[in-house]
């Protein structure tokens, strides 16, 4: 790939090297003629937890969706464990490589917690196995284990619509555990929760990732959560990486320059106009 000058990797087989097993290389993404991401490059090693912070509209969600293979970048490449997620057609291989947890509304409210968690197996199961899972009283081992791991032991048969917001977030996490991808992508996993609960769930996500050696990319609304619990923090501003630092190197000056408002009034207008479509996607 000779699109842009690589930041860290130099050798062609760098993708299989532990240090930068996940490589985002010169990724640009345009929605029509609006630039959502502008030549973003960084890499991560196995088991690293990386938080993306920045104002809404900075491109966090777009970047995460590209990493998860849900969007194909306009230019540049994403390479996870040597594979480009958006190019993998085989569902089983793709879901083992990367899994995504969305902001909200991503569970099926009418189904039980157990069936929602089991949806993490759909990439691996045959159609008949997945139908049998719905219709027959089979063992739900992996799903029940995952629910127990996120603190919902014995509550597998409850309907998701009857669970609280925090419990629903745990079910979504259990589904990701059942899927058990190498790379976990989480878009605002705790956005709608109160601070204590948000903290607890981020800790849970981190400890699961650490015990299994999974790489995590997560956008986090609250920079304090990012600094407290993640290995690395990447600040995105106006479609660009503003800083990429180890969590303990991030200072309040960094945050201030990341979150300060635009100077000119007309730039402000342009920015808010851009925010809306990015949020909606």
């Amino acid at each position, binding site marked *: 790939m000779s699109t842009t000058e690589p930041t860290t990797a130099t050798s062609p087989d760098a993708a299989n090297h532990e240090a930068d097993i996940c490589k985002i290389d010169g990724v640009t993404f345009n929605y029509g003629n609006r630039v959502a991401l502008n030549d973003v490059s960084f890499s991560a090693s196995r088991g690293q937890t990386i938080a993306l912070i920045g104002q809404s509209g900075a491109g966090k969600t777009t970047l995460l969706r590209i990493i*998860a293979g*849900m969007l194909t970048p306009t230019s540049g490449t994403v390479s996870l464990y040597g594979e480009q997620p958006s190019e993998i057609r085989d*569902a*089983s291989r*793709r*879901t083992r490589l990367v*899994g*995504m947890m*969305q902001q*909200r*509304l*991503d*569970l*099926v*409210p*009418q*189904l039980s917690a157990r*069936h929602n968690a089991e*949806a*993490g197996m*759909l*990439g*691996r*199961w045959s*159609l008949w196995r*997945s*139908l049998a899972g*719905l219709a027959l009283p089979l063992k739900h081992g992996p799903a029940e284990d995952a629910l127990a791991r996120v603190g919902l032991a014995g509550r597998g048969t409850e*309907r998701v619509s009857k669970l609280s917001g925090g419990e629903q977030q745990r079910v979504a996490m259990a*589904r990701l555990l059942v*899927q058990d991808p190498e790379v976990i992508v989480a878009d605002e996993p705790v956005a709608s929760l109160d601070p204590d609960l948000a903290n607890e769930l981020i800790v849970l996500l981190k400890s699961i990732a650490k015990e299994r050696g999974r790489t995590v990319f997560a956008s986090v609304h609250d920079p304090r959560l990012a600094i407290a619990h993640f290995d690395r923090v990447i600040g995105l501003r106006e479609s660009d990486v503003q800083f990429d630092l180890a969590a303990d190197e991030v200072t309040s000056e960094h945050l201030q320059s990341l979150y300060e408002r635009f100077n000119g009034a007309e730039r402000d207008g342009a920015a808010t106009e851009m925010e809306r479509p990015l949020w909606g996607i």
Partner: protein
Amino acid sequence: MAPNETGLQLRWSVLYGASRGLPVSAFGGVGEPNATRFKAIGLPGARAQLTLVLVIAFIWSVVALDVPGGLVHSGGIDALGEITSAFFTPDLSTDLLGTVIGDAWTTLAFAVAGMTLAIAVGVPLGVLASGVLQTGGLQRLGVMAGARSLLALFRSIHEIVWAVLFVAAFGLSPAAGVLAIGVPYAGILGRILAERLQDAPQEPLDALRTSGASETEVLFYGRVPSAAADVVSYAFYRLECAVRAAAVLSFVGLGGLGLRITTALDDLAFERMWTAVFALVLIVVGIDLWSALVRRRLLR
């Protein structure tokens, strides 16, 4: 063409001007200011004037009609009284109860068999008509259009008309009755199912796709659960309708409660008629209770 065009424009503008300029007071609408003025000074508004005109027209039409034997049957009031008093004294003799229970069973059997056929035909067609399983462009459109037009054909013909057609084909056989209910109801059920499946919220479906679900798995893990409660309660409502339809179809000679009601009416035996009608009501109430139970389980 130019003179013609101007002519057309002219006529339009005249019409337009007229519609704006004329004081249209009688029918509200354009004369809205008029109507409010009437109201303000206590005179009847445009709507009241219209009502008056229509009432006068109705009375005039009734007077002008020349119905042989008079407009109201002379014995009508008496018959109405008999029917009313019979309502409180239905015939509950064991003889009749036995036959009515048998008739109710026949009617219910027709309704259930018809609904079963409707579900068996309507559900697959509804899934195809929703187009949620196919992803390809042209093929998907073709399947959707085919299934949709079939469903439309089924439901655009009333069950009684289907009954006439099937009786003509198969004679007075139970199959004709079951088909007469099953075919139009399949059309209605399939259409409702297709719409509910399409309307399932997209976000959970996308999440299922991200965790590797195929479109068939998305159907069963995402769309069906989201559509189930609505479609099931609608199917129960349709079962009630099927009971009514089965009763009506038995008027045309398929046996059951409807036949009992007609023969009782022919004999002017209103007590017997009410017994059969109450049996019909009981079936509908029973289905309603069953439906409530199932719905509660679905929404548990």
